[in-house]
């Protein structure tokens, strides 16, 4: 190995043979585990599931007709169209906004942190965030909280009158009409005793009053008492809306008190129908089924945005600090507004950096696997499917078809091939 330095004519190392020991370990591994597999997958994709029979292009044809794979394709398109652009945009905004903030480094560090943890852990984090039960998932908890402020949920879900009432679209309407002077007895069933509010008082039959329609709504327990009669321990149900309807029009509205009683004073002569609006008995709002079929892909994309935004910010901020100040100042001196400076100077000067960020994110998105695997529950996984996941499932999961799996792998390779060329061209340009 030892050589006399016979020449001073620069040039890196002089003997090609000396490169061998340096290169050999890496080359052997790359050749055996990356290049050979690439060729093998290509060939394998033309053979059937067992690998015995040459089937031409039929694995590819099947891939493009298989429903699951087509959903995966569709989702990959959604991902590529939405996610990288969103993250690049957010990255640009935050990079610019943090430019002059003293704690910019801390801010970027916080947003960068998700890059350090595994996609698997991020998936679990967001599975918990979007968990459907509002007492577990924070998103639905917030939604329910906000919803209940603006429209309080009913206290008596699923309750209904014992008998004598017919359910319509508007509510439970009495079969028999009533008029001023009557007393309406309205026993409800289907209420869990624990749901009765604490302020509820024992129910009692109101006195009939002239010119007034009175009544009482109570929780009728038939187990130890008489159905349809007020027994000693039974309590009135507070807060129930009651309507008086005449000819299809609501003429009066009231709400029961703590003892379950209600009164319609000043009812004009004539018969009315007493009705309990359905809003009394609605199921409480429980938020959205985030992890169901319809929302699963947006949910997973939001997790990816959470992970990648910090990366985009840091990358773009590096580019931003390389923009010559003179260019910005010159534009300002010429009277450009800040927005014009941003649009006409900053963004164009940054565009090479933005392109690199964007391409990097697209490559990342095409290979997305873990997030879908972890966040989508089994029932929604088909709807959330992406190519990388489908490839795993077809070859190693339930499928066991390595011909089809190889075809999918080759398709993935072809999809990232443009990025490969992009990288190589850029690399060549930078060296020259």
């Amino acid at each position, binding site marked *: 190995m030892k050589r006399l330095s016979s020449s001073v004519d620069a040039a890196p190392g002089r003997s090609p043979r000396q490169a061998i020991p340096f290169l050999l370990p890496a080359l052997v591994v790359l050749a055996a585990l990356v290049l050979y597999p*690439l060729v093998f997958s290509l060939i394998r994709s033309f053979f059937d599931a067992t690998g015995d029979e040459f089937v031409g292009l039929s694995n590819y044809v099947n891939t493009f007709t298989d429903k699951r794979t087509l959903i995966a394709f569709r989702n990959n398109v959604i991902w590529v169209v939405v996610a990288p652009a969103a993250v690049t945009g957010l990255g640009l905004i935050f990079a610019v906004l943090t430019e002059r903030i003293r704690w910019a480094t801390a801010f970027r560090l916080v947003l960068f942190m998700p890059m350090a943890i595994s996609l698997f852990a991020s998936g679990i984090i967001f599975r918990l965030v979007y968990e459907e039960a509002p007492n577990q998932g924070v998103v639905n908890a917030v939604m329910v909280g906000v919803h209940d402020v603006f429209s309080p949920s009913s206290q008596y879900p699923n309750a209904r009158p014992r008998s004598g009432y017919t359910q319509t679209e508007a509510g439970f309407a009495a079969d028999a009409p009533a008029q001023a002077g009557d007393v309406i007895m309205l026993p409800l069933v289907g209420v869990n005793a624990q749901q009765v509010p604490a302020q509820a008082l024992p129910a009692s039959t109101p006195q009939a009053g002239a010119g007034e329609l009175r009544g009482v709504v109570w929780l009728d327990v038939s187990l130890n008492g008489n159905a349809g009669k007020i027994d000693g321990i039974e309590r009135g149900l507070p807060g129930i809306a009651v309507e008086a309807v005449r000819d299809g029009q609501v003429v009066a509205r009231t709400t029961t008190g703590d003892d379950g009683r209600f009164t319609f004073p000043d009812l004009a002569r004539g018969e009315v129908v007493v009705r309990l609006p359905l809003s009394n008995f609605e199921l409480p709002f429980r938020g959205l089924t985030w992890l169901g079929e319809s929302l699963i892909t947006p949910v997973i994309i939001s997790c990816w945005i959470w992970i990648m935004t910090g990366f985009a910010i840091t990358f773009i901020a590096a580019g931003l600090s390389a923009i010559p100040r003179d260019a910005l100042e010159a534009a300002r001196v010429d009277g450009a507004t800040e927005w014009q400076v941003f649009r006409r100077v900053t963004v164009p000067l940054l565009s090479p950096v933005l392109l690199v960020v964007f391409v990097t994110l697209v490559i990342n998105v095409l290979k997305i696997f873990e997030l879908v695997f972890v966040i989508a529950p089994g029932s929604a996984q088909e709807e959330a499917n992406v190519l990388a996941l489908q490839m795993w499932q077809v070859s190693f999961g339930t499928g066991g078809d390595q011909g089809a799996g190889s075809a999918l792998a080759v398709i*993935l390779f072809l999809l990232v091939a443009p990025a490969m060329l992009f990288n190589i061209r850029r690399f060549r340009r930078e060296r020259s």
Partner: protein
Amino acid sequence: MTLVAEEVRIEVPVSGSPRRGVLSRVFGRLGNGFMQLFLAVVAVFWLVPVFGLLIASLRDEQANTASGWWTIFTKPAELTLRNYAELVANQAVWQSFLNTFYIAVPATVLVVVMASLASYALSWIEFPGRETLTVVVVGLLVMPIQVALIPVAKLFGAFGLFGTITGVVLFHVAFGLPFAIFLLRNFFAGIPRDLIEAARMDGATEWVIFKRVVLPVAKPAIASLTIFQFLWVWNDLLVALVFADQDSAPITVALRAQLRQFGTNIDVLATGAFLSMIVPLAVFLVFQKYFVQGVLAGSTK
């Protein structure tokens, strides 16, 4: 992104230059306060999901099924380390945690060693095809690992490596090398020629130049690569899912089986996920400068 490695390697964004920000001028001082508030809200927004998982991991199963983690503010007494104690006492989980080290450490060391050697040859030894080889490495940067899963599974099967830690490590090494070589080659190529030539004139062999001249100078780049590669392997799920068996599974794969009953399993999953995050988070906080540089140079992977 790989491609701008040279530009960004060292100057990771540190703000504080007195130059006027683009939008900040518009807002003036009042707006600036408003913007800071907005950014603070965004930062909190980013932290809440992780915080929620942390709290969930510190409450027992009953508490987690009964109410959300945010109720901890009214019931701090619910905090307990029991989940962690149980998880660590679970032989399979503890083994998988150790496996993650057994996989990540050799996969990192091998990549750093092999890539340093190869990068030295690619930047300082002249040989035919050097240019082509470098371009091939750049091309391989974005290679999806999916293309290798099936063939390598067969290969490992034939050599008895399927389901072993060695197999998982080898696969990680193979797919870590292109980026590692790319990063180090860029750095090595930037070392002043005089330094290398002076050593050659003194009669140093390539090996000595590599060891005495190049490696000491390249410490920052090697640190970035080491941290990036370690976290990359530590955080892997897919490779181990295919190539590891029950005894060699890292923690991500071991936890995966628990995913099915998520709602009732939060205590186990949150704790497991956090256990798996402790190492990356610690590495990130301690070496964040190097990690950020590594990611900036190579998240094309």
